[in-house]
Structures are given as structure tokens and as C-alpha cells.
């Protein structure tokens, strides 16, 4: 607690807040505030235009804590200090310059009625309006009939009021109203309730575009604030400020697209300003004047982000906001809130939204060094959480997430390496435990997507950086985990898991140029197995990319066998392709070739004959090619340099038939498997 207090105290010193009482209230307000947007968001989703992935994602975020056991401690610890980190000042109503004009609009007041609202809510509102009228009439009749009743009613109402206000006080000032009241009274200038018209806004926009220092900026930002909080408190004064939807649109688009430029010109900073510069600026007089404006802008943008539900708009807001990331460095609490929102959006299924969220995250992580740790932890944990459920639809998204993570972890390899080591050690410990006990429960911890994709993540990380850094210790740890998992999960049922591991091994092998005997893990796939003779009326689609364990009833099905062999061919040809220029390629191919020929002879599945034959032919061709080439060389196997330089020109030109063959194989499976990025 002492630490927290210290933190707060420092913040307040910076913010020049006067009283502890005010601070306390504001913490509470902040608390409420954070709950507020949620309410708004969920309300907003009541109408039909929500999107499925978003919802799915939200549910996973909510259940995050309960499912922590499922992640079985793979994730990094997250210190829950956000609560007080999020401590920030009021949402800052800016005092407006009275000189700035408001224009009454000549437009028809009812113009907003024609807008896109035709959903049930509207009709319901109409119905309710009617009902109210009816009831009021009734009440009036009653009042007319019995004038004494008016007195009684008044008494009753006043009683109700006092009861209500008491309740509000009791419930820890849960209502947003009280907050607003507080704010208003304390800041000494009540928010302007003047109606904003389209004309007013355009006028202001023009003013600001001409001169950034124009007082209209304040008005605009206030309007922006109201727009961002629109709908949060239904009976707040801001509800009536917007004349119609267009005004709302105007404000939001203008502020989002222009404010970055405006602030930059106000502060006179360039595009490449980094955190240090901003920190230097903070003491300058210039900053003092602009500070509340920026604060208001950033905070309200965040409010907007947490309120919006449409992916397109979110992406737009993110893209706009990305330009001003550096400004967040002045407000650590705000930026941690930003990070939170960003990760929620990043994990959502929508591609463009997650991409823009990620770009923003990356910007935050690279521009704000304080946030890097938080970002790394958050991104890893979010990744794990979204790996709980893998199906055909989200495999692509998960690959995208892996790439993003690798991207993020590449910002500071030194730091990331430590995290990677911790994570891989955890994986290793789980593996050892399972191999010791062989108990179902322990095995379940490995036989799931979170574990496997976690391994996959570090494999990708290694692949990206193996060349540039000395990552060998991590490399061998990861390798051991992969081998251990392959060893623990033998048997036909786990072939998809095994193929996935082999893919990782291929990746590792090609990045490190080390030899891994891939065929040793593929014998099971290339073994001929009995196919059930039962005529299957319905072909079941087996997609290995979203499977770890094959259901028992499919074990003997043709489709499974087919998929097995095809996947094996794919990974095997990747292995061959890697060593297709090596002097000992004929020997590498000997035993697999032996198996392939046997399988080709035995298999009863017609569609497999051709691909197997094709691979055999290609391998034999390449084998003959290498044998011819090496007959004319004079060096011995122990001459390392010569062995390494063997066929280097051909390798660079990538022109042998096997390379082309592999390219075609890789292309063929691209729609099924991962995209080669």
C-alpha cells in the first residue's frame, strides 16, 4: 500500500491536484468510468450489427481468469497494479472561450429523424411514447377528479427522491451522475449544454485548420469529449448536445484526423519525436498550455475505443490514433489503459482490426520503453488465451498472432530471450513431469493447443533470429521439448500432432542448417495400414491444421490415411529439399525411398498413387543427379570446406527439378496449411 500511495502521490504532485479528497473521489470516478464504457458497449451490442468474432473474443476475455488453470501456468505473471496505474485525472472538461460562436442551425430539427434508425428499438420508443401519453392523460384525469390527490402525490414523490439520493450515497456513489455533478461543481465551469449544429462544427473546423491556436480547438475537443461519452450516461446533458448524427460524425472524424497535426504544430515537434523529447518538453511553458488539450484528446479517444463495436470504425480510430502514440508517453496511466484496450482488439478475430491494433501495439512498444514489458507479457498471455480453442476458422488468425508476437519480441531480443527461456523451461518442466508420471492429467497438459502453439511460437522466434544471435541454448531446449513430445505421444492417433512437430523441426533445421533425421518421425505415416472396407457414404473432412488427435472412429478411414500420407509427403519433401544439394543426399533418401516404394506397392487408396510416385521419381532423379556430380569430385567426406561448397552455384540458382518440385508441393498445400510468409 505504501508503494501505491507513493506512486499516487508522485502523480498528484505532477498534476498539481489540490486536495486528497478530490483525489479520492477521482479514483472512484475512474473506477466507475471504466465500468461505464462496458455498459455502453454491451448496450450498443443489443442491436443486430455485432460481429461474431468480437463476441467470441469478449467471452474469452471475460472467462480469462477462470480458465487460468487451463493455461496451467504457462503464461507470464501479470502484476495487477493496473488499478492504481490507471489512476488518472478527470476526463477534463475544458473551459471554453466564450468568444467562440455557436450557430443555430437553420436545418430542419427533424432532419435526424430520417437517419438509419429503423430497428426495433425505435419502434419500441414510439410505443413507449404513446404509453406515456396515455398514462399521463389518466393521471391528469385523476388529478382533475380529486385535487387533494395532487398534494398526496407530491409528498410521495419527494419521499421517493430523498430515498433515492440516500441510496446513491450508500452505494458508494455508483452513479455516473454524481460524478458529473462533482466535476462540474469543482471545475467551476459547467459543461456547455448548447446544442451543436452542423454549421457550428464546420465553422470551428475551419477555424482550427487555419490556425491551430484558435480557441475553437477547445470547443471542438469538448464536443469530441461529449461525442466520445455519448450514451454513457443517458440522462447527462451531453445527450442533447448533438443535433443529429452528422454532427457526431463531423466531430469525430475531424478531431481524429487533424488533432495529431494540430498538437504537433502547437508543440512544434517533428514526426520522429521520441519519448525523451516529449519528456523534455513537459517542463516547457508550451506544454503547460497544450497539456489539458492533449490529455482530453487521448483520454476521450480511449473512451471511444472502448465504446465502439464496429470493426471498421475501430480500425479507423486506431490508424488515426497511431500517429499520436508518442504523446501517450506523457501519461503513463493512460498508456497502460491504451495497451489493455489494444490487446483486446488485437485478439479479436477480425483481420484488419487486429492488424491495426497490432501496428499500434508495436508503435507503443517501440516508442514507449516503459510499456515494452507490459506489451510482451500481455501479448504472450493474450496469445495463450486465444489458443484455447483452435478450429478450422481461427487457425489463420493464430498464425497471424504468432507472427505479431515474433515481431514484438524482436524489438528487444535480449529481453525477449530471457522470457523465451523462462517459457521454454516451463514447457520442459511440464514435459518432464508428464513423462515421469505418465498420468492422463499430466499428459493432457501437453496434448493441447496452448502447449503446442507455445512451442510453435518459440520455434518461429528462433527461426527469425537464429542467424543474427547466438541462440543455441534456447535452440537445444526447444528441440528437446519437441522430441520429448514426439516421444511421449506415439501411436496413430497422434499423427497430426506429430506432423506438426515435424514441421517445426523442419523449420528449425532449415534456419540452423543442422541436420535432423526427419524420417525417423514419419515412419508411422508411411506405413501401410488397413483401411476399413466399410463404404463411407459421407466423406469426412479431416483437416490436420486444426487437429492434434484423430478421433477414434476416423482412424481407419480412407480420408485419414490419405491426409496422413499427403502431409507426410509434404514434410518429407521439405526435408529433402533442404538437403537436396548436399553431397550425401542419396544416402539421406535411401531409407525413406525404400519405405515409399513399399507404400506405393501396397496402398489401396487410389488417389495416393500419383503423389507418392511423383515424389519417388523426383527423389530418384535428384539422387542420380547428385551421384553423377559427386563422382567427378575428388574431395573426401572429411574435407568440410569442400563438402560445404559442393553444388553451391546450383543451390543459389535454385534451378534443379527437385527445388521446383518442392515449390509446387509447398504451393499446393498452402491453402490448407500455413501461409508461407
Amino acid at each position, binding site marked *: 500500500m505504501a508503494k501505491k500511495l507513493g506512486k499516487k502521490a508522485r502523480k498528484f504532485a505532477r498534476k498539481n491536484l489540490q486536495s486528497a479528497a478530490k483525489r479520492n473521489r477521482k479514483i472512484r470516478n475512474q473506477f466507475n468510468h471504466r465500468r461505464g464504457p462496458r455498459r455502453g458497449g454491451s448496450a450498443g451490442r443489443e442491436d443486430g450489427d455485432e460481429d461474431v468474432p468480437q463476441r467470441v473474443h469478449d467471452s474469452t476475455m471475460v472467462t480469462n481468469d477462470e480458465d487460468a488453470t487451463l493455461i496451467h501456468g504457462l503464461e507470464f505473471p501479470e502484476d495487477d497494479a493496473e488499478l492504481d496505474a490507471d489512476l488518472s485525472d478527470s476526463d477534463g472538461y475544458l473551459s471554453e472561450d466564450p468568444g467562440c460562436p455557436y450557430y443555430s442551425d437553420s436545418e430542419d430539427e427533424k432532419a435526424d429523424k430520417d437517419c*438509419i434508425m429503423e430497428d426495433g428499438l425505435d419502434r419500441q420508443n414510439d410505443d413507449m411514447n404513446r404509453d406515456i401519453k396515455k398514462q399521463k392523460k389518466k393521471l391528469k384525469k385523476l388529478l382533475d377528479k380529486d385535487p387533494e390527490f395532487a398534494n398526496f402525490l407530491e409528498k410521495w414523490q419527494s419521499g421517493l427522491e430523498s430515498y433515492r439520493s440516500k441510496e446513491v450515497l450508500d452505494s458508494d456513489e455508483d452513479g455516473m451522475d454524481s460524478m458529473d455533478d462533482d466535476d462540474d461543481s469543482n471545475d467551476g465551469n459547467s459543461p456547455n449544454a448548447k446544442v451543436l449544429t452542423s454549421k457550428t462544427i464546420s465553422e470551428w473546423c475551419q477555424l482550427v485548420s487555419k490556425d491551430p491556436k484558435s480557441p475553437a480547438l477547445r470547443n471542438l475537443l469538448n464536443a469530441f469529449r461529449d461525442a466520445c461519452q455519448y450514451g454513457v450516461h443517458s440522462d447527462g446533458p451531453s445527450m442533447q448536445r448533438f443535433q443529429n448524427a452528422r454532427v457526431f460524425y463531423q466531430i469525430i472524424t475531424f478531431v481524429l484526423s487533424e488533432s495529431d497535426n494540430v498538437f504537433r504544430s502547437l508543440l512544434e515537434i517533428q514526426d520522429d519525436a521520441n519519448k525523451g523529447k516529449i519528456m523534455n518538453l513537459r517542463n516547457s511553458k508550451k506544454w503547460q498550455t497544450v497539456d489539458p488539450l492533449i490529455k482530453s484528446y487521448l483520454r476521450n479517444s480511449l473512451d471511444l475505443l472502448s465504446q465502439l463495436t464496429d470493426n471498421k470504425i475501430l480500425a479507423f480510430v486506431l490508424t488515426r490514433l497511431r500517429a499520436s502514440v508518442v504523446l501517450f508517453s506523457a501519461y503513463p496511466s493512460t498508456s497502460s489503459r491504451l495497451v489493455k484496450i489494444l490487446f483486446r482488439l488485437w485478439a479479436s478475430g477480425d483481420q484488419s482490426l487486429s492488424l491495426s491494433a497490432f501496428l499500434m501495439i508495436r508503435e507503443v512498444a517501440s516508442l514507449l520503453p516503459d510499456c515494452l514489458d507490459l506489451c510482451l507479457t500481455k501479448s504472450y498471455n493474450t496469445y495463450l488465451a486465444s489458443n484455447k480453442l483452435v478450429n478450422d476458422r481461427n487457425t489463420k488468425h493464430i498464425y497471424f498472432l504468432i507472427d505479431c508476437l515474433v515481431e514484438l519480441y524482436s524489438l528487444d531480443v535480449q529481453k525477449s530471450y530471457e522470457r523465451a527461456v523462462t517459457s521454454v523451461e516451463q514447457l520442459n518442466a511440464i514435459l518432464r513431469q508428464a513423462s515421469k508420471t505418465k498420468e492422463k492429467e499430466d499428459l493432457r497438459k501437453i496434448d493441447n493447443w496452448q502447449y503446442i502453439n507455445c512451442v510453435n511460437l518459440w520455434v518461429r522466434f528462433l527461426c527469425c533470429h537464429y542467424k543474427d544471435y547466438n541462440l543455441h541454448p534456447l535452440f537445444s531446449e526447444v528441440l528437446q521439448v519437441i522430441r520429448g513430445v514426439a516421444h511421449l505421444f506415439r501411436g496413430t492417433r497422434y499423427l497430426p500432432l506429430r506432423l506438426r512437430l515435424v514441421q517445426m523441426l523442419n523449420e528449425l533445421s532449415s534456419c540452423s542448417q543442422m*541436420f535432423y533425421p526427419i524420417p525417423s518421425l514419419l515412419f508411422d505415416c508411411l506405413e501401410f495400414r488397413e483401411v476399413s472396407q466399410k463404404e463411407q457414404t459421407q466423406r469426412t473432412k479431416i483437416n490436420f491444421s486444426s487437429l492434434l488427435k484423430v478421433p477414434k472412429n476416423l482412424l481407419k478411414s480412407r480420408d485419414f490415411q490419405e491426409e496422413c500420407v499427403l502431409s507426410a509427403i509434404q514434410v518429407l519433401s521439405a526435408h529433402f529439399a533442404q538437403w537436396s544439394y548436399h553431397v550425401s543426399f542419396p544416402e539421406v533418401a*535411401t531409407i525413406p525411398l525404400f519405405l515409399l516404394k513399399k507404400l506405393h506397392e501396397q496402398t489401396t487408396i487410389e488417389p495416393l498413387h500419383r503423389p507418392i510416385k511423383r515424389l519417388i521419381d523426383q527423389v530418384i532423379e535428384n539422387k542420380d543427379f547428385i551421384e553423377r556430380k559427386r563422382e567427378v569430385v575428388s574431395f573426401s567426406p572429411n574435407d568440410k570446406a569442400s563438402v560445404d561448397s559442393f553444388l553451391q552455384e546450383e543451390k543459389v540458382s535454385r534451378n534443379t527439378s527437385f527445388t521446383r518440385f518442392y515449390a509446387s508441393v509447398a504451393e499446393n498445400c498452402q491453402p490448407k496449411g500455413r501461409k508461407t510468409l
Partner: protein
Amino acid sequence: MGKRSGSKRKDKNKVILPPELPPEIDDDEVDLSDEDIAFYATDSSNVAPFRRFDKKSIDRYVGRVAGRDEGEVERLYEERQKRKATESSGKPREDDDGLEVDPVDALPTKTLQGELVYNRAKKARCEDNTGGVKSKAQENGADAKQSIKKDEPKGKSKNKKGDDNKVKNIQSQTEVPKGQPHSNVLEEVKAELSAEELFEKKKAQLAELGMAMLEDPESNIRSLNDMLSISNDKDQKVAKLGLLSLLAVFKDIIPSYRIRQLTEKELAVEVSKEVKKTRYYEYTLIRCYKAYLQKLVSLEKQPHFYTVAVGCMCALLDTAPHFNFRENLLASVVKNLSSSDDVVRKMCCEAIRSLFINEGKHRGEATIEAVRLIADHVKLNDCQLHPDSIDVFLSLRFDEDIGKDEAEEEKVKPKKNKRWQKNQEVPKQLPVNDKKKTRQELMSKAREEVDVDLRAVSFTLDPKERKRIQKETLSALFETYFRILKHSVTTSNSRTKVNNVSPGGSHPLLTPCLEGLGKFSHLIDVDFMGELISCLKKLSGYSDRQDEIPNDNALSVSERLQCCIVAFKVWRSNLEALNVDLQDFFVQLYNLILEYRPDRDHGEVLADALKTLLWEGKQQDMLRAAAFIKRLATLALSFGSAEAIAALVTLKHLLQKNSKCRNMLENDSGGGSLSCLVAKYNPEATDPYLSGALASVLWELSLLEKHYDISVSSMASNILSMANLNPTQNPVPILNVNPLEAYRDLSMERELLKPASKALPLNLKKKRRGKEFVALSPDVLQKADCSVDKDELEVKLQSHFAVLRGISENERLRAELNHTLSSVNTYKDYKKQKKKNMKFKTGRKKVARV
């Protein structure tokens, strides 16, 4: 049977059979500590609890904690007192109380070690919940586990059932007084009650009988009959309890000698009362035992009693392998060795194993009987048994010199023996009968008997006898093994064509058989050798016709590799004196390497084969060595690191032994200057001589140098360095292990057991990346920058606004509506109040008026 009573009885026996007890045994067996004796002295009726610890457990306790047995005694004493108290005070309670005790538990169970376990006491105390229960259970745990495990679950379930019934009874009892008019219900309840009562009664009866038996077997021997009759009860539960109680009793009272049928002469002779009593006792015991066994054998056929009956027989065989009717017991147990019931099979295997291991109990006679029975069993079932039934042979133990110089010994020893026997036995034998009528027949018979008895108690075996028994055992053992081999040979050829069953399925006994042959290879008679080798050859898949596909063999790769290993072991353990051509086994191994699959076959067997055939062998034929070298190198490229290292270790060894093969390390243009028959290397050749491996170059090693596993890659470079050395020089040895050890060292199981290595911290210069992306592809990134369409954005934002407004409007309206509605509703209240006021007023008015 307590030690004291036991020795007493033996003393009595002395009257009839004087030489029965050598005096030194008393000391040996009656190993009472001072405390024990003191304890004994305190209460003469202490015999029963005292029985609980035998020499072994005491020894162990003493060995562990000095003075521990004192505590033990005290504990036992206390316990006994407690039990007595409960018994005397709670006698009536036992019959009708809910705290009813399983009769099986009521009897102390004697464990294999002879420790008595009072389950009853434990349970009762369990319910009294004293803390001592646990400690007691732990103390007894080690010894008692077996018996508890056997008895407890049953007891528990029964107890539960009993409780359930109790509950029912109580319910019905409470129902009756409620006045159920239906008489049939009443009858039903009555019948139920009576069945319940009967059960309880019988249990109590069993418990009483058992306790009495244990307290004084000699005077209560007749109750065995009663117990037997109880075990014939119609109620299966009761019968089971009876069987188990009898088992406990028998385990305790069976004497340590075999009871002999009395001859007529002996019967005719007048004997003292004591002897009569003993004879009667023995007669009853043996009769009941026989009846009991018959009962078990007959019950064994009933599925309900199967496990219990077999369990009883196993326990009896384990405790009393020396006693009468062992043959019958053995026959039943052996028959159940291949039972499909896992539990039963495990029990039988354990019983037979302990028979083999503890030969002292029965001097090896039971061993030979068991081995013969198993042999017959295998024969009868045409080798289609569970592998466990042969696996037990691995527990057999033979003396090392059994096969040798038997002729010599036979000449010398018998004489010695006889003389010794005569000297010792004749005087002892004298007091048996009236000395005048010593007939030769009787003499010899008696001597034999005496001999047997002597050995039974002295646990020593006449070396000659021992040898004879072992030889017979051995021959029966090998008979079985050969039968299995022959059977596998004959069926493997015919069967494979019919169905392609999974490997190992058709010859369940082969693997343990090969294992056994490997283990006892040094004991195999040279005469059998030739046949054995040819058998193995056939089994390993070798055929004279080269064109035959090796896959035709039904045996799995592991089994075939094992055949090769066994053949070599047999050959080697006979000092390689045998003149057999083992070339074919090399060919087999050469081909089997290609058929090996890491997950299907046992890598250890492959490594073992490499070790036995190639690593341990002397100098190889050059062509053959070259072929193996090439194939092993290829193998290392396609299999995991454990197989690879085993192959490389072998390869290196071969290269060292066959220096000419080192040419393969070098790439002479023109390749094989040494090649003779085949100029071009054929990797898929089936005959090592025709592979042309000498013409090849070991390019594999250059790739193996890049192997991810550091030990494999360093091994590869080590081998490659041989190329620069003289033929006589060897490279620096880096891994001095045989292939099997190398395999084990690198196998995944081992690796996962090793402590996790800490990854070293990364020390690199802070190299912050620029802005470029590493993982995301540019075309993905491009998508992000295409900004949202303006119109679309406008529409979406406006609709967002509209929705928000709709919601807030809705909320506002709702509030207003509610307010108005409640206002209207207050009118009712208002009216009510008004009325009340009116009434009040009118009332007051009335009052005023009045």
C-alpha cells in the same frame, strides 16, 4: 500356531518319529527375546496375540530400531486387552449393533510373513476414531498389505451392504409400527430380517470358530469340520467368508512337515494317549485340508468364486509348498497362469515365482513339478498361452556348474552320502518301533522318510539330489522352450499366408521364450545346439531361396532380432566351440536394419543385436564389414539420435577392427579399388556380399557432422578423423561404451530423466532493431494502410450514434413511463388512505355522537 505350541507338538511327535527334530533347530526357530519371554510369563492366554509377530518381522524390527520389539509387544498386549474388553462387554452388541464387523476381519488374518492382522480391531477402532489406527495400519502395512488388499475391499463392500440392509431394516421397522395393514409386506420384512439375522449369526459363528481354532488348534481341531460345512452354505457371501477364514486358519496351523499316511503296522501298534491325540489331530487336519482343497478346485469353476478360490490356492501354495497335496495345488495354479483374468494371472505368477525363488521351503521339488506342469500346459494348449506363463521361468535359478563334471561327482558323492546317512540315521531311527522287528522294507521306507523330513527341517539339500532336481528342471525347461520354438517355426510358415496378423500376436510365447533362452544359454546341452540354431535361423526369417520376400515371416522385427541375438549368445556361451555357420544371421541382421521402425520395434533390441553380432565379434569378413558399415551409416541418417549413436559406435568399432575398410572414408576417384564382385553400390541389396559397399564412400558422415545432437556429430567427426590415420592407429576414443549403453544413454526416456539444464543467459550487444518487420510479410502489412472508405465510415458512425441515441432515449422514456405509472398507482393508495381517514373520522364522529 504359535511357536510354543508348535514346538510342543513337535516334542510330542518325537515319540513316534524320534529323529524328526534335530536339537539345534529349536534354538534356531524359537528365537525369543527376553521381553518376549517376560511377556509370555505375564499371561498364559497370551498365545494368540503373540503369534502375530514371527521371527522375520521381529528381526526386521530389531534390525531397524533397537528396542522396537518391546514397544511392539506392549502395543500388542494393550491391543489384546482392549479387544478382550470389547469382546466380553460387547458380545451382545456384536450381534445387533450397527457397528458390525466382517467375519473375515473378525479372524486375524495371517499374512505371508505370518504376521497376524486384526482387521476387526482396526475397523472397530476406526469407528471409534482413535488416532492410533493409522500408525497401526502403517506398522502392519508392509507385511499386511497383501492380505489387506485381498480382504479389505470385499470386507468393505460387504460392510456397506450390511449397512444398507440395516438402514432398510430400520426403515421397515419404523414403517411397521406405523400400522401397515398389508400382511405380505410384513412377511417380506420378516423374511428379510431373518435372512439378515442368519447371515449375522453365521458370521459370528465363523468368527468364534476361527478364534478358537487359532487359540488352541489341537483341542479344537474338530471345528474345522464345522467351518467346512459353513463354507458349503447356500449363501455365497457366507461361503466366501468361510473359505477365507479357513485359509487363514490353515495358513496358521499347517505344520512345517509333511504328514504321512500311517502304515497298517503302525496303526496296529498300541500307542500312548498323547500319540493317539496327535495322530487324531493330524488325521483330521489332513482330511479337512483335503476336503478344503477339493472344495476350492470345484469352486474354481464357478465364476462367482473364481478369484477367491484361486487366491486361496495361491496363498496356500505360497505358505505351504512342502505340505501334502501340493501337486493338486500346483496343477490348479499352473492352469490359471494363463488366465484371461488379469488379477488371477498376476496372483498365480507371483505364487509360482515365489516358489522358484524360495526353493528352501520345498527343496526344489515343487520347482521341478511346477516346471513340468507348465511344460505340459504349454504342450496341451499348443503354445497359445499368455506370455506370463513362460515369463515365470526367468525367475528360475540354477547353479553355475550344473552342466559340468556330473559324472565325476556322481562317482564320488554317493558313497560319501550313503556313509554319512547311515552313520547318522541308523541310531536315530532305532527308537521308532520295537527294535527287534526291523524289517528291511520298513527300514528303507522309514529312512527315506526320515531323510525327507530331515531336509525339510534343515533346509539343506543334498548336493547330488539338488543337482538331479536341477537337471530335471532344466530339461523340462528347455523342452518347453524348444517346443515353443518348433511351434513358431511350423506355424509361422503356414499362418502368414492366411492372415496378416499383427506381429507378436500369433506367437505370444516367443518373446519370453527367446529371453529365457538368452538367459540360460550357457546351460543348453551341446547336443541340442545344432537343432536350436537351425530353428532360430528359420525363425529369424532366413530362407534358402533368396527371392523370397522377407516380409513373409510373421514374426516381428524385434522377435527376429532376438533370434539372432540368442543364436549368437548360445554360440558364444559355449566357447564358440560349436561349428555352426552363423553367416545367415548376419544376412538377417543386415536386412532387418532396413525394416526396423523406431516406434513399433524396440530400439534396445536393435542396439543389443548390433552389440552382440557386430560389436562383440572378432574380426569380420571385410566385405561383410563394409556392407554393415555402409548400412549403419545410412541408418544413422534416418533414425533418431539414440539409434544413430548406437550405429556409429558399432561402425567405429568395425572400422577399427577392419582397417582396410577405412578406404571407404576416402573418395578415391574410381571408388572401390578393393571391390571385387560388384562395382556399384546397391543400397537395397539383401546380401551384404553383393551390396558392393566397398565401392562406396561414407558421405553420410559429412552430413552427420551437422547432426543436431552434439554426441552424434562429434562421433561422426571422430570417425572421419580416422581417414588421416595409419591403419594401425586409432582415433582418440571419445565414447567408450558398447552400442547398447550408447543407445540407452541417448534414449528419450533417459534424457527426460536428466535434470533440466539451465539455459545460459544471452550476452549480446544491445542491438535494437530498426523499424523493419521480421515476421510479418509486407503484403499483410499493406492491408493495414488502406484506410476505411469515407462514406462507409460516415454511415457506420452515424448508425453508431443513432443506436446510442436510441438506447438513451429508450432509457429515458422508460424511466418516465415508470414514473407516471407509479404515480397513477399511488392513486389507489391515496384512496385507501382517504377511506381510512373517512372511517376514522366517521368513527370519531360516532364516538362523539355517542
